[in-house]
């Protein structure tokens, strides 16, 4: 029985993998990858350089064939994509691969041609250049563009055939934070237009923009979850910060660590402020307010902490190291 026919397939997923593995000789680049990408979502594939992100993209686009396991993209095995399947996919390669001797317009026109886009496409291509804010630079040679402009041109070239599913391999690598933010605005807009985006990045902070995040480390997919779910999994619950006028003494901390809704030790930020992990922030906060009143502590601030994803990522890796 083929993978696509199995009953446990989730409806509406454009990418599904089961034990997807790729080895190059003795080296395992991707090990037993199991994941799904819902249609219309932004799936962030996060991990350090060399962890297997690009190999995964190449497996999903049909460039590599898996050593074992299966991948189903848009309902097909990528290794057997037909021309019409390929027309539904857009692929942005990490490095700039277009032609420096051609202008922005000639490059995008070339991309449209090799995707077989109708020759009456001027309007469509102009809209794309407007979208990536390169309309005023269409006569510039690609070789003379800045790094950020080249990235935007590459993105436009990826969109020329209006693909259903976009694989964007490190689209924000090597560009400044302001432009990175702009790129994520583009991606959100593309999502709003109905595209599904599979985006790899090594900027852990970008996980916050995604609907689902897969954390990749040394060829293994450690977990897939929503950004909040990821935080919870990393810390074992929600992180809550409390600041009191009187300060939180040692006895108070011991009492808090003994509460049924808390996990682990209370972390001291300074004399007045602590952080703690709870099951569920929404239920724990009222209980903590009650407890403070009982202890005659004046609460200046109590809130759920949005931990930076860099820390979340480090936590996840640390947990993984412990498991190993």
């Amino acid at each position, binding site marked *: 029985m083929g993978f696509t026919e199995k009953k446990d397939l989730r409806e509406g997923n454009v990418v599904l993998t089961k034990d997807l593995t790729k080895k190059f000789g003795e080296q395992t680049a991707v090990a037993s990858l199991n994941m799904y990408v819902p249609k219309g979502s932004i799936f962030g594939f996060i991990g350090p350089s060399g962890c297997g992100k690009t190999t995964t993209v190449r497996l999903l686009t049909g*460039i590599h064939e898996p050593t074992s396991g299966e991948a189903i993209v848009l309902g097909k095995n990528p290794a057997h994509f037909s021309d019409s399947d390929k027309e539904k996919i857009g692929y942005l390669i990490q490095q700039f691969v277009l032609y420096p001797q051609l202008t922005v317009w000639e490059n995008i026109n070339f991309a449209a*041609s090799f*995707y077989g886009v109708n020759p009456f496409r001027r309007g469509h291509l102009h809209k794309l250049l407007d979208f990536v804010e390169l309309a005023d630079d269409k006569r510039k040679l690609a070789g003379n563009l800045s790094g950020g402009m080249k990235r935007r041109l590459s993105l436009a070239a990826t969109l020329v055939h209006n693909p259903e599913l976009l694989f964007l391999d490190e689209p924000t690598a090597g560009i400044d934070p302001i432009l990175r933010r702009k790129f994520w605005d583009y991606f959100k807009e593309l999502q709003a237009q109905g595209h599904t985006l599979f985006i790899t990045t090594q900027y852990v902070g970008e996980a916050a923009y995604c609907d689902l995040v897969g954390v990749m480390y040394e060829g293994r997919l450690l977990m897939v979850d929503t950004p909040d779910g990821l935080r919870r999994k990393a810390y074992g619950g929600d992180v809550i910060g409390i600041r009191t006028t009187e300060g939180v003494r040692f006895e108070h901390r011991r009492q808090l660590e003994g509460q049924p809704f808390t996990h682990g030790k209370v972390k001291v930020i300074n004399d007045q402020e602590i952080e703690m992990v709870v099951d569920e922030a929404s239920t724990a906060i009222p209980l903590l307010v009650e407890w403070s009143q009982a202890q005659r502590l004046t609460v200046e601030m109590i809130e759920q902490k949005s931990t930076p994803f860099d820390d979340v990522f480090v936590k996840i890796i640390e947990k993984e190291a412990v498991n190993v």
Partner: protein
Amino acid sequence: MFKFLIRISSFLGKEFVEILRQPRLILTLVFGPFLIMFLFGLAYPEQSRPLRTTFVVEGQNPLQEQINIFTDSPNPVIINSGVENNKDMALAKLKRNQTDLVVVIPPNPLETIQNNQQAEFLIYHNEVDPFQDAYVQSVARIYVDEINRRVLKMVTEQGQVEAGSAQPSLESALAKTKAIREAVPPSDTTTATQLADLEQDLTTVNENLTTFRSLGSGVLVSPFTVRTSGLSEVTFTPTGFFAPAVIILLLQHLSVTFASLSIVRERHSGIMELFRVAPLTALETLLGKFLSYLVFEIILAAIITGLAVWVLKIPMLGQWQDYAVAIVILIFTSLALGFLISLISQTDTQAVQYSMLVLLASIFFSGFFLDLRLMWKPMTVVAWSIPATYGIRMLQDIMLRGELSPAIIFLGISAIGIGFFLIDWLLLRRHMER
């Protein structure tokens, strides 16, 4: 089918624009070959190289006068650069490159000949090039033949003069013999018959002497001469002869170089990865690239040919449509070879090196310099595996002879081109599927 054509057209435009965006490259491509042919024409205006010759005459020599007459007369191959009476001094001049040949006149030639021996001219040169060596030997042979002819002519003329002075005595002897024969009594038939025979012999000798004196000395010494005539009514200069080969060699080299850099460059830039994900097949990629370079090279060939024929006045005796067919087939086959190089090369540098090897092989084996008929038969396989060999043959036949090459030549190069194209297709499919 419509999308197939759109995808092919993507390369047609892209490759064209990429080349046109380099104006210096275009200028070099168009005017470079023209300039090479023009300079070639300037460099080799003469068909034979005259040799500066120093003569060594030691002591009194009866040949001195003949040598002076020969070398002082207008001569396309020998330029008299002096007479020395010391061989060592003449050889020193040869070493200093002040003369090309040293001719040592045989001492006492008449005595040597009278002793039934050949008198030997010693000729020295300083050539290391085997072709120049052969040329010098040929000139030397012609020179000695000419000296022999002149000496014989001189001796013949002397003989004619001497025959002239002997003839009155002969005629007197004939008259006396006749008178004696008439005075012999009729009964003495034996004596009368002997005298009649003698009279007949003397008459024959006299007639032969008359004939000998009446013939020109030049005809007597060299009774046969030769006149060669080619079937073509046009006489070709070296530039005219080499122009078709130069055009072919340049077009082949440009095609091979363009094509060889094309795919290897794209493999390295990473765009091939994009092609593999896109709905673009190896055949579409290859056809697109073929068409773009083919169109570009045809335009280039037209400009180069126009400049060669109308500016350099290179003869064109054949039909233009035959010329066009030959050029298109050559470019197609050369591009197929170039793409093959591109697909087996790992780097740009490697592709350029392979292209240069093809150029070198073409120069040495295509008949560009050396006639293929001189080649050791088994090695002609190498020659006929190079597109330029077919191209040069086709263009020389069309431009210089005004006729089409045998069909086997067209079939041969077409088969090679199609063979290379199929290999290119298979290799590119492997690259794009990997």
